[in-house]
């Protein structure tokens, strides 16, 4: 600890804060350079090439030829099999299928784990176990689930006991594929969410809850009226990150449907379609257009979530009421 102080001292003697300023900029150089070269420039190129016809038909490259908005037009064409509306809907349905159980279970677990009155044992063990599924690579986990649910897998061996030998083809139907994808995303992410929410709940001052108890609030009243409002910022964070992650869903449905998004493209996500365009034909034009659309969708959704949940109506109303009360009080005093 002594050393940095010692170093600062001679600088202080010069009596100028300006000499420190440059160090801030110097320390920022590596990141800024890396960002500009590896992120900003490719991003600009993505935007640029989305207005071009630019793909490979081995061994030749076609383009880049400027074609204006054609890539976007075909994406938004409702008559196309893979249009943005269908793909976004597919993606969101699969996200919701995983997120709803995830947030419910996570809230419940986080509430239990942080509730000192329950005196739960082996908390560390539980917290580690529920986090475990997130440690496995999503693609590997998908393979595992695919094998479990395949027509010769263990789940179907059980089903065959009841149906008389007829397996249920989980990966043939839109509904069951969405169910399995939802189950997987739930399993993978509820531990992570639980830990985030626990952090938020542990930040709540115990005296608030005690006060509520003394006032005679029930457990569920405390949960809904005190805990949930107080962890709202973290809830919004969880919702937005999960939504952005969900819109970029790729590996799980890709592996489970073997990249086809079958039946009839009803389980194809936005990124799966992007991958379809880039993997064989390296279609930078179309793939760029899809990326930009995904970016815009993410931005819009995040804004909706942010303004819909983060700024609390009751809070605003309470503020208003408080201000009015203060005014009234002043008036009264003035009189």
């Amino acid at each position: 600890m002594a050393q940095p102080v010692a170093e600062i001292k001679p600088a202080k003697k010069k009596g100028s804060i300006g000499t420190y300023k440059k160090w801030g900029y110097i320390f920022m150089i590596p990141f800024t350079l890396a960002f500009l070269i590896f992120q900003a420039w490719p991003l600009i190129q993505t935007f640029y090439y989305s207005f071009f016809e630019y793909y490979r038909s081995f061994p030749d490259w076609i383009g880049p030829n400027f074609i204006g908005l054609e890539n976007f037009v075909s994406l938004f064409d409702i008559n196309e099999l893979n249009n943005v509306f269908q793909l976004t809907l597919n993606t969101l349905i699969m996200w919701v299928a995983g997120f709803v159980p995830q947030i419910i279970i996570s809230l419940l677990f986080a509430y239990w784990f942080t509730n000192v009155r329950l005196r739960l044992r082996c908390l560390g063990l539980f917290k580690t176990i529920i986090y475990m599924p997130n440690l496995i690579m999503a693609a590997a986990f998908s393979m595992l689930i695919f094998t479990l649910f395949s027509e010769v897998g263990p789940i179907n061996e059980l089903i065959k006991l009841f149906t008389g030998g007829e397996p249920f083809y989980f990966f043939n139907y839109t509904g069951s594929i969405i169910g399995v994808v939802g189950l997987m995303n739930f399993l993978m992410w509820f531990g992570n969410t639980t830990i985030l929410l626990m952090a938020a709940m542990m930040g709540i001052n115990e005296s608030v809850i005690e006060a509520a108890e003394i006032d005679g609030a029930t457990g569920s009243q405390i949960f809904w009226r005190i805990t949930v409002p107080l962890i709202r910022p973290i809830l919004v964070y969880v919702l937005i990150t999960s939504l952005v992650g969900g819109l970029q869903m790729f590996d799980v449905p890709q592996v489970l449907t073997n990249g086809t998004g079958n039946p009839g493209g009803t389980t194809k996500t936005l990124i799966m379609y992007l991958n379809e365009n880039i993997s064989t034909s390296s279609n930078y034009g179309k793939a760029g257009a899809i990326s930009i659309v995904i970016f815009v969708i993410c931005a819009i959704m995040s804004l909706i979530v942010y303004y819909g949940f983060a700024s609390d109506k009751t809070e605003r109303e309470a503020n208003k009421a408080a201000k009015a009360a203060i005014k009234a009080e002043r008036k009264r005093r003035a009189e």
Partner: protein
Amino acid sequence: MKKRILAALLASATLISIAGCESTASTSTPASTGGETSTADSTAGGTESTGGDAAQDAGQYIHDITLADGEGKKLNIYAWNEDWKKQFDQYVKPHLPADVEVEFIINPNEGNAYQNKLDTDLPLNADKDANEKIDMFLFEADYATKYVDTQYTVDVKELGVTDDDISAMYQYTTDVAKDSAGALKAVSWQATPGLFAYRRDIAKDVLGTDDPEEVQAALSDWDKFEEVAQKAKDKGYFMLSGYDDTYRTFSGNATKPWVDADNNIQVPDELMAWVDQTKDYTDKGFNNKTTLWSDAWSADQAPGGKVFGFFYSTWGINFTLSANSLEKAVKDGGKEEVGNGEYGKWAVCYGPKQYFWGGTWMAAAAGTDNPKLVGSIMKEFCCNPEFGKAFAEETNDYYNDVNVMKEISSDPDYGSEFLGGQNHYALFYEIADDIVMANCTKYDQGCNEDFQSAMHDYFNGTIESKDVALNTFYGLIKAKYPDVKVPDTAIAPPAESKAE
């Protein structure tokens, strides 16, 4: 302390999961998650111990290969699975110079992953370090024309393969590997006529005989085939395993290419006939609803399978069927011998329709630093009648030499152990001459794969009509091959698909 351990665990958990995310992100193609690099030792000790006596028989006809002056000591071979690697390790590697290191770079075929890898790496080959250059790569019938007519493959004459060497090869195997100027760019060690392989015990139960000639008489056209399928069903068997089993009997006889000269996609009538027939068979319960190469499909070939037979061409019998038929797999210490599972309980007949399926060619990648070494391997493995005869007798693979195969096919003493002593080469030999590999395009693999996957939903009933399934197919092709034009009329999805 307890908390600290937990914290450390969680922290490492986070790190690992981040690392996991990164590695998923970097695999641009889904199928390439299975991609792996396997380095083979340059010492031959390993192969000798596992190969056994039989391995030495065919391998002894391979001549020792020497390294020409100035050639690199690292041989990189691109392939899409381990099938040929096993044969290479067994037969060729013991004859390579001891200091040559061989590396197989494997990327799976599915979803075009292997082709994508080649498309990316071949153009860069000239500028790579000698040890990283692709020296040799294998390709399949479904995309043979794609690489042949480009600057990325080398004329085999430059590698030392002479006209004399290839004189006995089947005409179609060299026709398909010639570029537009007539230069031969690749050679194959196999010809791939197709047959119908059936389980002898099931045939006996259903037809009362397992004799190949009598079974053939019962299956000689599709009407008879269907009658037998009904009989098999009544006895509790499936005639076929899945939807794609008959695909090649139709696609191998297609009268027009997938993509015409103006780059319009066209579905051959033969394939629509396949769709109708397969839908019919599925509804009647003649198949077990599996898809090609799936676990369920392989399980149908294993002991306990209830499937009458499989359409397989030459390589399918030695690469796939014989391995799948075992009770105890080779990797678990089992041997490919009579008594292990269904080994030895199969037989082959022509089936209702002549066809061919697949085939593997080997080409030298332009820019290789080992042209002579690659040429020698080609000569020793593909143009070596003595080796070919022993190889065919040992592996059940159909060697690409008319004279050799004529000799074996008429040899009364030869019989395949796997096929219960039947000489299947006699059947293959009869039809191998008729193979015509016309109508090839560079889009074939994507088209075949996507057509099958789109139609699966029609077969299993999750999509109501053929037209909707065709739409799905056109959508997939549009993304995969933007330069192929798909019909406009078919783009608009019918109302029923929207309703879902």
